[in-house]
């Protein structure tokens, strides 16, 4: 029996009605009675010691309620912001995580670092007062570039991190790799820069803190992808309030892309200050602040080498990366260039041995942390640029070179030399489909046609893999994670037949209210309109690890399935009692319970009603119909696929025009194809942004951010992008009950490598991202 709006249907989204009518509830839309407005005075310098702060004139300004500095928070016993993943260096030492106060205590270490929090009756008054604060800075020479920061003699940013080193990490068998290189017939090499990005969800971060003096309860409304984690960190490490006295609510959140995972200074300061002044305090970032303080992404410098035999078979892969952490270690920053990066360097390939080393260091820049893909786009970029280079060096077609080295469909489970066990996939299938979609064999003719029109055409491939469904708790725990990465769910059947689902996943654009409702509709036969998905409130949802790493469906969805299984199990007992049959004879199909071999049946709604009105009910069963489940995944999931981009370049200007894009992704089973396609489109767009348009730039001398607004940071617009042709293959994931793999990050992981390979193919030489018109023009004109 199939169910309307069930698994596999492109159900139109339930959440859309409020968004298209202007009735969403984003954070800045909320206001509380008696609310005051907070504004941060920020450092104008990239690096300076603070000699003194004089607040006297500012405190006397009109409308000022109070002004706080870092010293006030320290005096109140509030701890610093933490990094939740401990990385161990080659020499066995733990990573350096210098103190990270919410507001500066003795020094500022990047432009935009928090110096004081001004609270006033209006935002304009708070801004006016901030201009009256006198800070005496002893300005130091900054360093923004990671290679320079790790070089001898660089300015020392933290006393606790000598040489600005955070860690020097390695993974893989160095001796085996060295031996393979020594005997290789061919060695290809590449040097790459993975440009620094600003995530730019369209809704800026915001916080509204509220204190109830009577109960002592604190409530923080905030733009978070994981409110429970925020509560946990604020309670356990900062000492804001115990978890039972702190409620964190993330209402409608306007995009995240990773940047709203982290526990930031501003949100922390806002909730702390609400109690200090015993009034609601609201802080909303403007876009300029977002550029200065939202954690950035990427910023790697990498050298890679690939060893091959005479037949073009890969023997070994060697990678060395420097990763910029920014001024402080953000919440999950340390994991991004290590366990989310090094572990994916086998790509889709059978590579006998791999060795990677990563030096992470501090600079006078905004902290860097997870941004859509987090480590995996960087890994794919290295692997796939490397494969293209190797194929070119060998004179082979890059797709043929890949097909020759792919892990074959019968090889699963496949253990890579970098501690991952791939569970399922069919890499040749996806690549061949993508080649057909884009008419790969017709490229030469199209290139000739372009040439006749004075244009340069190129085609480029990326066969990516990612580890999603983050993550098995024991596995990540052994690698240094400070938390478990399971997910929780509660499925509550209401007495009158509607269902409320509480999930620890958080939707900020992904459409969980629809996808999760489809699971319930499918499994329990409830009309989708009668299913309500509740998320983002620590006082409603049992617990949650939140949404990132393409984990919501594979982990959060699996928790829902587990809870549904418990509902079904209990319902069978009730059905057996009411229909006077044995439990073993009860069959369940999409919410209908029947007695095998008879025409007796009951619906889920009837059973739920009986559970709440247990007049005729099994003696040994509790009333009610609500079940909790916590799901800890058995393995990561491994979405993979091939994207092929085709470009045409105008040699007179260097403008790159994307003329075609074929994406074939294996996400395992798909619940809502429409939503999945939308995720691919959005991911590819961000990847195209990285490859062509976006890049955070600091002035190396002053440390000033030069791309601090949309005037200078180039966001992809509608006319920068093409239509995308997308398709999926399906090798179901064997390690979760839905067979799903995750689709949120794939596009952002595949796109930069595919697009840069196309550009490099057109130019016949390497260039770095972003491939701006001038860079491309210079490459063409050799200057």
């Amino acid at each position: 029996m199939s169910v309307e709006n069930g698994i596999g249907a492109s159900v139109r989204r339930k959440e859309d009605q409020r968004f298209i009518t202007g009735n969403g509830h984003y954070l800045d839309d909320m206001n509380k009675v008696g609310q005051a407005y907070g504004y941060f005075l920020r450092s104008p310098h990239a690096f300076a010691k603070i000699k003194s702060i004089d607040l006297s004139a500012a405190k006397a300004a009109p409308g000022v309620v109070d002004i706080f500095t870092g010293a006030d928070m320290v005096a109140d016993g509030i701890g610093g912001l933490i990094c939740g993943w401990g990385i161990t260096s080659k020499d066995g030492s733990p990573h350096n995580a210098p103190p990270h106060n919410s507001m500066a205590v003795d020094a500022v270490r990047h432009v935009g670092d928090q110096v004081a929090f001004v609270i006033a009756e209006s935002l304009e008054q708070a801004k006016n007062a901030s201009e009256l604060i006198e800070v005496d800075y002893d300005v130091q020479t900054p360093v923004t570039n990671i290679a320079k920061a790790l070089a001898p003699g660089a300015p020392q940013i933290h006393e606790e991190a000598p040489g600005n080193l955070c860690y020097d990490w390695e993974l893989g068998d160095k001796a085996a790799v060295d031996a393979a290189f020594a005997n290789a017939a061919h060695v290809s090499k590449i040097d790459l820069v993975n440009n620094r990005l600003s995530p730019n969800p369209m809704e800026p971060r915001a916080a509204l803190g509220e204190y109830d003096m009577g109960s002592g309860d604190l409530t923080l409304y905030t733009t978070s992808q994981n409110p429970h984690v925020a509560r946990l960190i604020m309670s356990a490490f900062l000492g804001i309030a115990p978890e039972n006295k702190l409620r964190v609510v993330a209402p409608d959140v306007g995009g995240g892309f990773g940047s709203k995972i982290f526990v930031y200074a501003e949100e922390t300061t806002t909730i702390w200050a609400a109690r200090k002044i015993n009034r609601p305090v609201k802080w909303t970032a403007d876009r300029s602040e977002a550029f200065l303080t939202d954690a950035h992404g990427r910023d790697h410098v990498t050298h890679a080498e690939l060893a091959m035999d005479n037949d073009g078979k890969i023997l070994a892969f060697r990678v060395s990366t420097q990763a910029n952490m920014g001024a402080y270690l953000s919440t999950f920053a340390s994991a991004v260039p290590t366990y989310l990066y090094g572990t994916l360097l086998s790509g889709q390939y059978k590579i006998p041995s791999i060795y990677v080393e990563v030096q992470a260091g501090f600079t006078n820049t905004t902290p860097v942390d997870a941004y859509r893909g987090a480590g995996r786009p960087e890994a794919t970029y290295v692997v796939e640029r490397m494969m293209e280079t190797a194929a070119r060096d060998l004179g082979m077609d890059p797709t043929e070179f890949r097909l020759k080295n792919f892990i074959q469909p019968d090889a699963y489970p496949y253990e890579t030399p970098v501690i991952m066990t791939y569970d399922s996939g069919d890499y040749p299938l996806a690549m061949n489909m993508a080649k057909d979609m884009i008419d790969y064999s017709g490229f030469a003719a199209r290139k000739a046609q372009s040439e006749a029109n004075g244009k340069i055409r190129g085609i480029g491939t990326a066969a990516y893999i990612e580890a999603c469904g983050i993550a098995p708790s024991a596995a990540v725990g052994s690698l240094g994670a400070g938390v478990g990465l399971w997910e929780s769910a509660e499925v509550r059947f209401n007495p009158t037949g509607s269902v409320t689902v509480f999930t620890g996943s958080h939707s900020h654009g992904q459409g969980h209210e629809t996808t999760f409702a489809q699971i319930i509709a499918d499994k329990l036969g409830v009309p989708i309109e009668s299913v309500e998905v509740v998320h983002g409130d620590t006082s409603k949802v049992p617990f949650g690890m939140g949404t990132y790493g393409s984990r919501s469906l594979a982990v959060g969805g699996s928790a829902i399935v587990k809870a549904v299984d418990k509902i079904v199990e209990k319902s069978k007992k009730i059905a057996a009692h009411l229909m006077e049959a044995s439990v073993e004879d009860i069959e369940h199909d999409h919410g209908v319970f029947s007695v095998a071999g008879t025409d007796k049946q009951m619906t889920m709604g009837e059973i739920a009603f009986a559970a709440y009105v247990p007049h005729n009910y099994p003696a040994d069963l509790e009333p009610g119909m609500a079940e909790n489940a916590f799901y800890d995944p058995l393995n990561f999931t491994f979405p993979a696929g091939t994207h092929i981009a085709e470009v045409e370049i105008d040699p007179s200007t260097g403008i790159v025009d994307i003329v075609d894009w074929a994406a074939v992704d294996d996400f395992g089973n798909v619940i809502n194809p429409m939503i999945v396609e939308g995720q691919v489109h959005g991911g590819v767009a961000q990847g195209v942004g990285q490859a062509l348009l976006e890049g955070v730039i600091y002035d190396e001398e002053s440390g000033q951010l030069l791309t601090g607004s949309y005037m200078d940071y180039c966001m992809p617009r509608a006319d920068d992008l093409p239509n995308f042709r997308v398709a999926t293959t399906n090798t179901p994931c064997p390690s979760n009950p839905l067979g799903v793999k995750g689709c949120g990050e794939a596009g952002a992981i595949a796109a930069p490598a595919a697009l840069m390979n196309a550009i490099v193919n057109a130019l016949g030489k390497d260039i770095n991202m972003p491939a701006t018109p001038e860079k491309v023009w210079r490459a063409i004109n050799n200057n």
Partner: protein
Amino acid sequence: MYSFDYERPSGINEAVSAIGEDDKFLAGGQTLLPTLKLRLAQADKLVDLGGIAELKGISVNDSEVTIGAMTRHVDVADSADVKSAIPALSFLASHIGDAQVRNRGTIGGSISNNDPAADYPAALLGLGATVHTNKRSISADDFFVDLFETALEEDELVTKVTFPIPEKAGYAKFPNPASRYALTGVFVAKTANGVRVAVTGAGTCVFRQTDMEAALSSNFAADAISGIKTESSGLSADIHASAEYRANLISVMAARAVKAAS
């Protein structure tokens, strides 16, 4: 925004007499308001020109197109009269900013601000337009002085701009990928008084490319300027483009503008 007073006069004289030393005229506001919002500028009073009917409107006769200072970009872009008299001017107006900006921004505001990357200055200089103020008439060659600097005096207000109708004209713009201002824009016009080539975005102020003017005077065709390079020293350089790249764009955009000229 810092606080300010606001006045909305209904006549030109009233507006001019309302303006004080620390006050600013508010035209379409598409540059001024963002600047005030970011607290990069301050005014005691804004004198809004939006209520002055005589500053608005387009008229076209056999020899010239006249555009009132408070005429919006969208109105110039959509005007059938402008399209038929000087299609390049209509094309240029339709490529300023974005749709919402064109629905508010005005020609008077744009040229009075004289942003080095604005589009309109190229049209004025390229067509040899005349800027009319409440006091006098100023040729475009004299009006645009330097970076954000014009010949306007403090209590002087642009009232309208007259464009002589050329034999043919064209505009080509290479937008800054981020801001969409002109990274380099070139306006070429074949006029009764000779060929004019005006370049915006590439320097601190709109300027004429006289080598190209000379070449196009004898042969108004893209080929005529294919060998002409612009000296990059003196051109702007920033994170978006070097001076050398801008020099290249001048050549490319000039050729495109000549090809597009009609």
